[in-house]
């Protein structure tokens, strides 16, 4: 069954369709949330909320605006950032990840440098093939939840430079993804 069909069935109240939708996407959505929240317990909460909202809001999915994957990833990213911000408000100590390429599951990956580099390659995926300056701004925005102004302040770069880097980075990302299967 195609993705849009599955979501349409969910909108009609088909619980089995929802189970299939979860099984199809949860293992890809979870690492995204984990990467943003960096806390497995928070990530599990967000994951549950994201899929619960997908079930309740399935009728609002419009295939004309994108694939179900893009739909669910976008909701997951937004909810995860919301979570991090609410935690930050409570603790006032949160600092968005600047340079550390943290994945939650691998706090201490162990192994030698080459192995760690390989792990990082897996984590970064296509982003790892971007020039450092472009990768950095996209990560700060997309995973760190920083706005363009906050990124400019943090990197001590002109706002225009930050914006241009984001645009070039996304263009490059599309090229890289087109080449990989």
């Amino acid at each position, binding site marked *: 069954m195609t993705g849009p069909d599955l979501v349409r069935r969910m*909108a*009609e*109240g088909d*619980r089995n369709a*929802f189970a299939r939708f*979860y099984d199809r996407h*949860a*293992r*890809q*959505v*979870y*690492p*995204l949330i*984990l990467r943003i929240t960096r806390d*497995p317990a928070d990530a*599990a909460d967000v*994951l*549950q909320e994201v*899929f*619960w909202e997908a*079930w309740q*809001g399935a*009728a*609002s*999915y*419009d295939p004309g605006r*994108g*694939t179900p*994957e*893009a739909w669910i*990833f*976008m909701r997951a990213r937004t909810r995860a950032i919301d979570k991090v911000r609410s935690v930050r408000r409570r603790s006032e100590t949160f600092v968005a990840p600047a340079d550390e390429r943290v994945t939650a*599951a691998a706090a201490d990956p162990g192994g030698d440098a080459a192995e760690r580099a390989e792990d990082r390659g*897996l*984590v970064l*995926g*296509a982003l790892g093939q971007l020039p450092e300056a472009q990768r950095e701004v*996209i990560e*700060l*925005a*997309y995973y760190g939840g*920083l*706005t*363009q*102004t906050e*990124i400019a302040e943090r990197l001590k770069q*002109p*706002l*225009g*430079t930050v*914006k*241009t880097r*984001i*645009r070039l980075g*996304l*263009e490059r*990302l*599309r090229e890289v*993804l087109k080449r*990989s299967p």
Partner: protein
Amino acid sequence: MTHEPFDTLAAVHAVGALDGEDLVRFEAHLREGCATCEAALREANEALAELHRQATPVIPPAHVRDALMRRVQSSSRPRPWRWIPWAVGVAAAAVLAAAFTGGMVAARYQARMGALARDMAQAREQLRREQALLREEVKIARSIADLLRDPATRVVALNGLADAPNANGRVVWHEKAGGRLYVAGLPPAPAGKTYELWTIAGPAPRPAGTFDVDAAGRGSLTVAPVTDGPVKVFAVTLEPAGGTPAPTGPVVLASAK
């Protein structure tokens, strides 16, 4: 005005990083209905989705799935159209024609419900965006009002030079807090170019941010305070898109020394 600045704003919006005046401007542009930007946002979202599709999967804790399935089983989300096909089925035993008509009605009703839910979600989304926009606009207006109340704030006039004789500008400026530039009468920057503001306090001009103007030639820019002493001159030049660390293009606006 060329479309180019919006291509950049669309990319920044796609990674959720647009803020301030840019957010206000881009949302207004989207509301006018720009197929190019909608396509750009869609493509960027799909690229980011593809990025995660290719990433190494991580199996989430089983309790999440269990909890979700329990919630879904016991959810009483009203789905009023579910009983209609069933009712129609009963009627069909007696009157086939009636059932056919009923089925049509049910199908149309169901489609209509789906469309309504979509409309509602879009309306909610729009409301959320407009609230965010208003917050940004209020924030900007408040910060300028605060600045104007401060006796240390001065308003510096900028005059158009040979390349833009009809242009003029004002910088509301506070040495410690920074300020904001407003310009009018500037022609839209040509493709691949942008306007850049410079502050001259020390020996060399310092970049103070890039900006573009709308179709009416108006633009504005928030300016951060500088560290190399009181600003003696503000100047605006035309530079390659993205800006440069030192001025290379013609000066279009400058304050008196």
